[in-house]
């Protein structure tokens, strides 16, 4: 292990330790794109110098693996690996491969059919099912065509918010693994406000949303405050809080004097009042939930906060270079506390829209895995609000498509988790993607490393 990495065609450049966090908190993809472009225009090879306009920029981005290209290749690679897992866990396929020497065609076609069936079901459940179009021509519902897309939007809603929560903390140089606990904090408050008090229609829903934000924000604040006062690492504290809140959720759902539904032995809360529920809009079903709009508004708000406000500037400065921030007179502890508070609030809001918009009751089914998937959403979205929304839509599509796939082809929905994990793993390791696809070293990506240990 001396200096062999330098001999690899597209291995990591030892001088530029690149980190996902660096991508997240440093200059982002759009700036990186433009820098790549200008670098080509001034000092690129002569062949490419003759080409001008948008074309070469795209070629350059592809050849050098801009963040966007790396992301697309990462998704592609993950889908290919997922396909292999689906095919080679199929007993019919394995059977066909056992007699590969006798009938190689049969083995290959069995593999193809296994994968094609699963992935087309995934696509039909997530985006568009051709059958609904022909059905519409024969007197079926036109709305049914858009049903998969509405499901995708619904699934993406809580993920947008938990993703924003993790992304916002990232930009301030904090790693919020605790979106799951903050989700619970928000959801408990929302559920309580939802069934225990009575308010007029719109007001009740708004009060619940605010309560959800507050419930998550308290937990986020606790993490930020502990870090600011005692230096307790936010990763450790948030991991521990996840389990504390998980136990608390079990406790309140199993205690009749707390949140347990009267007359129930199961861990489930009462249903929240109709006034507290978020309606669905957009004509006849299928419709988009108001929660989705809330999530989009939150994304716009986070964008404004980060890119246009003084507070956001402080977040980004502290995240990119704490020493510079301190020199410039910014209060690092204050930034930590505020960033974690808002991040926690966003995760709490995710709990609110899940309860108010989808399940109307709190139990472990509505708890789901939004907090943990939010981490991967934020990473895939490179900690930018628009990126988070797109990543959440992608994962939402996987979730809604995965449910259809499981129902129609008996491929377990857990494969979605595998594909999501692989995508993020590849996105986090651009050198790997570059090596696999023989891309050249990106010139604009040498962002300062933000490597942080427990002591950082």
């Amino acid at each position, binding site marked *: *292990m001396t*200096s062999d*990495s330098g001999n690899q065609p597209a*291995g*990591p450049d*030892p001088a530029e*330790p*690149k*980190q*996902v*966090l660096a991508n997240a908190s440093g200059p982002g993809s759009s700036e990186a794109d433009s820098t790549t472009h200008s670098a080509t225009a001034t000092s690129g090879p002569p062949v490419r110098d003759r080409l001008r306009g948008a074309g070469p920029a795209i070629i350059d981005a592809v050849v050098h693996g801009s963040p966007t290209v790396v992301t697309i290749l990462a998704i592609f690679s993950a889908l290919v690996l997922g396909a292999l*897992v689906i095919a080679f*866990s*199929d007993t019919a396929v394995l059977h066909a491969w056992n007699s590969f020497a006798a009938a190689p065609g049969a083995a290959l076609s069995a593999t193809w059919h296994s994968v094609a069936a699963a992935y087309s079901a995934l696509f039909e459940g997530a985006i568009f099912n051709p059958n609904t179009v022909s059905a519409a021509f024969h007197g079926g519902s036109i709305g049914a065509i858009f049903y998969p897309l509405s499901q995708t939007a619904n699934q993406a809603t809580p993920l947008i918010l938990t993703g924003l929560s993790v992304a916002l903390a990232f930009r301030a140089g904090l*790693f919020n*693994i605790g979106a799951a606990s903050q989700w619970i904090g928000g959801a408990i408050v929302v559920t309580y406000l939802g069934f225990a008090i009575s308010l007029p229609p719109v007001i009740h829903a708004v009060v619940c949303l605010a309560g959800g934000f507050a419930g998550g924000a308290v937990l986020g604040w606790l993490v930020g405050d*502990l870090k600011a*006062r*005692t230096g*307790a690492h936010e990763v*450790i*504290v948030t*991991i*521990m*809080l996840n*389990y*504390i809140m*998980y*136990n*608390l959720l*079990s*406790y309140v759902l*199993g*205690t009749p004097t707390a949140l347990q539904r009267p007359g129930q032995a199961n861990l489930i809360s009462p249903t929240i009042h109709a006034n507290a529920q978020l309606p669905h809009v957009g004509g006849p079903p299928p419709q988009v939930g108001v929660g989705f709009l809330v999530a989009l508004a939150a994304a716009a708000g986070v964008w404004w906060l980060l890119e246009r406000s003084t507070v956001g500037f402080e977040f980004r400065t502290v995240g990119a270079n704490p020493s510079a921030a301190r020199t410039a007179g910014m209060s690092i502890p204050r930034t930590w506390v505020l960033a974690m508070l808002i991040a926690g609030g966003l995760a709490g809001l995710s709990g609110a829209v899940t309860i108010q918009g989808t399940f109307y009751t709190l139990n472990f089914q509505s708890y789901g895995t939004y907090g*943990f*998937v939010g*981490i*991967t959403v934020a*990473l895939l979205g490179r900690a930018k609000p628009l990126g988070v929304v797109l990543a959440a839509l992608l994962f939402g599509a996987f979730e809604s498509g995965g449910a259809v796939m499981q129902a129609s082809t008996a*491929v*377990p929905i*857990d*494969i*979605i*988790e*595998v594909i999501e*994990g*692989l995508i*993020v*793993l590849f996105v*986090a*390791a651009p*050198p*790997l993607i570059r090596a696999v696809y023989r891309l050249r070293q990106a010139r604009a990506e040498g962002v300062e*490393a933000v*490597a*942080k*240990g*427990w*002591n950082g």
Partner: protein
Amino acid sequence: MTALAAEIRVPAATNRRLLASATLIAFGLVDILLFGLSGHHGDATFALSLFGSKVSVPSIHAPATPVAYVLGGISIAIGIARATVTESPVMKRLSIGVVLLFFVISLLAWSDTGSWTHGIPVNVVVLLQNTLADAIPLILGALAGCMGERAGVINIAIEGQLLLGAFMAAVVASTVGVLWLGLISGSLAGGLVGLVLGAFAIRYFVDQIILGVVLNLLISGITGFLYDRLLVPDANTYNNAGTFGPVKIPGLGDIPVIGPIFFDSTIFLYITYAAIILVQVGLFSTRWGLRVRAVGEHPTAADTVGINVLAIRYRNLVLGGLLAGIGGAYLTIGSVGTFSKDMSSGLGYIALAAMIFGRWTPLGATLAALLFGFTEALQSFLGSITVPISPFILGMAPYVATIIAVAGLVGRVQAPAADGKPYVRA
């Protein structure tokens, strides 16, 4: 500079001492007010031998309420002493241990005299047996964490190592029909996760915390997928492994009380003993350990004197992974015999907590893991005698304790200096 630092630290130290003292006094007050005042009359019975064992040790009978008063009083005295007398570090830890022990005894005495017990004694031997059993995956996982982090690589993927180890052990032992092969493949699975962690962290400079979280997600997905796809439809072939039986160590296993707790268990407990000693001695008394710690504290200096930093990091991650994999194998072929979805259920994170709580030392991590194992055993015991305390409240204890630890309330917790930072040769 140092004088200034010391001066600044004084109020913090005073605060910390007062806080520690207040915590100890609070425990004493709970003993008295909760377990004493609202206690029930009658004797609590602590059984010290297993039902039907050859040598029977007489049980201890203790009146619950006076026990709580006395122990609570002593706890408060210790708390006051903690605030006024400057104690040595050993005494500090001892005082915390004693107060916790008194708390547990009062709790057990209180719970064994309630109307809900139906005269079932508190079997101390069974409780401690379960403690050790619950602690095995925690200890092995925490040792894996120590191995990685002492060399400077953060390992959040302990959870994934346990889960994949459990999965592989069950599947291989079940398909091949040899338990030992299951144990070995479970261990190798943990090592494989360590290798992947190393490859991405060391070669591709991926942030190690992100990496751990993603690997856990990935392993949860892949094991869950294969479980639904293969193990559920054909459980007889793939998920029917059986378990290792207990092996009594001749001589030692016959000692009353101690024998059944420490020397009459499955092979996993004995492997765990060996692993604790190997890692502790290895890290702190051998040349290898000195190198590992040098790499974890100051990789540049280590490199300068000719230590291969990256090789040590890889090797430690894989070796640690092998240990965590055994811990995972314990969950299936050491305990229940079959794999179920996400069966590690956060144990890897508790192991991580135990490592931090134990200040990145194998012995400390072991003690912390035993403490956490004890709360688990206590939880299931209290559940079995239907004490009106929610098991979930008790379930929070390890996590709350860890937050208190990292917040510096029980002394400063400090990670290896280069932990989590990728090493790049200048």
